[in-house]
């Protein structure tokens, strides 16, 4: 039986690889915000991208995981267990045949998360589950991914009592992407980090070894959010495919629009996931004796960040008004290189928004006082004028030896001219 605990965390690169796919921790705020940002561009047909990206990673991963399992019931059981371990919810594939079938469930991360964050939806929202099931059908029955179809016909986010997915055979009704290359990882540098009372390596190890509690609904309610452990290349594919579509539609300006959206998603990630962590009893239990200054809080949360599968972050410069973080094998860069080769612009959007968000929480939001992480607080902290803004100074996806993020406290001015996220040399 599949057990995600059998896949060890790679502390040399700070990645978790399951069935050949790197897996990363995110929360429902980030997941549904990123999806909605992509869907909001109505002039782009995003549904085939969202479904196709999930189908791509699920098919690749399950083909790997099922390679030594011959019996169909056992193959289905592995798929169901993986889905649950990811925090995606519950699925029952017993009625599935090689012709397809219906999958009905009362628990789906995206449907639940969407309704929690945005309220009732006008259309189905569980694109990841749709694509995952397409990939699963193909992998279970040794079919080409291009020969399966999948669509969601009912969605709990719309008020239905269940999510229903219809699977069938025929030319794929989602995007089939060009094959990815093998990932290229680089050696982590021996950077000197500022002194701190936080034992960074031990914290990363302790957090990575902490089991995520999956409840009876197949969801992971932790740190005040619904967490998931999903495929890094799902996030990469939907982001970069969207960015490509935007570039086709609007040229270089399309890249900038996409960057703004993805960096905002990074703020959302920092505020909710990292903020939730820093307000949790688990944080107090592991970290409290080591936290004497706000700088210790930064070192502490970067150590937690390194346990999320995102790659290795190192703090190389830190003051109350600025942070420089150097990232090795950040998953956006590694994924971009696998999918599209060398980038001609910085692609570290999550890390750009994420580290600006962390600085906002610690130095402006007084996260040590455990404030309520409300939407109003978010707006005050990120849209109220005085705030940390970050930019990429290097990016591994462009051939640089690491990705580096510089976050600086920016006072509001009458004419704000600096775009957050732009690479310094761009």
């Amino acid at each position: 039986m599949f057990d995600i605990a059998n896949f060890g965390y790679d502390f040399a690169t700070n990645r978790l690889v399951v069935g050949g796919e790197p897996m990363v921790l995110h929360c429902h705020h980030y997941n549904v915000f990123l999806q909605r940002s992509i869907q909001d561009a109505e002039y782009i047909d995003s549904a085939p991208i969202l479904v196709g990206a999930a189908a791509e990673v699920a098919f690749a991963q399950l083909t790997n995981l099922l390679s030594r399992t011959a019996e169909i019931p056992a193959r289905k059981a592995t798929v169901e267990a993986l889905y649950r371990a990811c925090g995606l919810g519950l699925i029952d594939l017993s009625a599935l045949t090689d012709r397809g079938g219906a999958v009905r469930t009362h628990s789906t991360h995206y449907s639940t998360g969407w309704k929690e964050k945005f309220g009732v939806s006008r259309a189905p929202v569980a694109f990841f589950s749709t694509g995952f099931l397409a990939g699963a059908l193909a992998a279970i029955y040794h079919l080409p991914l291009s020969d399966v179809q999948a669509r969601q016909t009912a969605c709990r986010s719309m008020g239905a009592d269940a999510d229903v997915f219809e699977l069938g055979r025929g030319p794929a009704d989602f995007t089939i992407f060009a094959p990815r290359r093998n990932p290229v990882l680089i050696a982590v540098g021996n950077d000197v980090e500022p002194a701190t009372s936080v034992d960074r390596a031990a914290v990363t190890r302790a957090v990575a070894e902490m089991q995520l509690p999956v409840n009876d609904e197949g969801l992971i309610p932790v740190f005040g959010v619904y967490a998931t452990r999903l495929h890094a290349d799902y996030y990469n594919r939907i982001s970069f495919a969207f960015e490509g579509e935007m570039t086709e539609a609007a040229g270089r300006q399309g890249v900038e629009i996409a960057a703004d959206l993805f960096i905002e998603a990074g703020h959302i990630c920092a505020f909710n996931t990292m903020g939730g962590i820093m307000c949790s009893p688990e944080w107090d239990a592991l970290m409290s004796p080591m936290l004497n200054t706000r700088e210790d809080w930064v070192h502490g949360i970067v150590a937690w960040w390194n346990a999320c599968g995102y790659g290795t972050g190192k703090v190389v410069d830190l003051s109350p008004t600025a942070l420089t973080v150097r990232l090795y094998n950040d998953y956006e860069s590694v994924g971009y290189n696998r999918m599209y080769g060398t980038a001609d612009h910085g692609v570290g959007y999550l890390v750009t928004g994420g580290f600006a968000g962390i600085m906002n929480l610690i130095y402006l939001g007084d996260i040590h006082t455990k404030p309520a992480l409300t939407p109003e607080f978010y707006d005050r902290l990120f849209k109220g004028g005085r705030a940390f803004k970050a930019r990429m100074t290097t990016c591994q996806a462009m051939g640089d030896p690491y990705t580096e993020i510089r976050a600086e406290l920016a006072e509001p001015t009458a004419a704000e001219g600096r775009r957050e996220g732009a690479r310094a040399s761009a």
Partner: protein
Amino acid sequence: MIRAAEKVYDCLHRERYRYTLGAVVDESLLAHYGDAAAFDVSVYDARHLLPQARVTFRVEPRDGRFLINGALGLDYVTITYLRDAGMAATRSAQEAILAGLM
């Protein structure tokens, strides 16, 4: 003894409280949830890596009506309640347990 019960914002539309206690939490709290058929209790001890760390725990009944997060040695726990018809009774029962702690 409960010193303070502070309602905490919960983005999952549940009700969450942070209970500050008169003393630090010890194993006597977990003893109330020792029935493995009724409660799922998980603990995590990272002291082999972080000697000063505290042992964290989470308690969830099989029916999922509440979730306790805390750590031995901290003077507070958080309890998250599902919003349903039985929430008030569930909350009263958990608060009675906390109030009875020394």
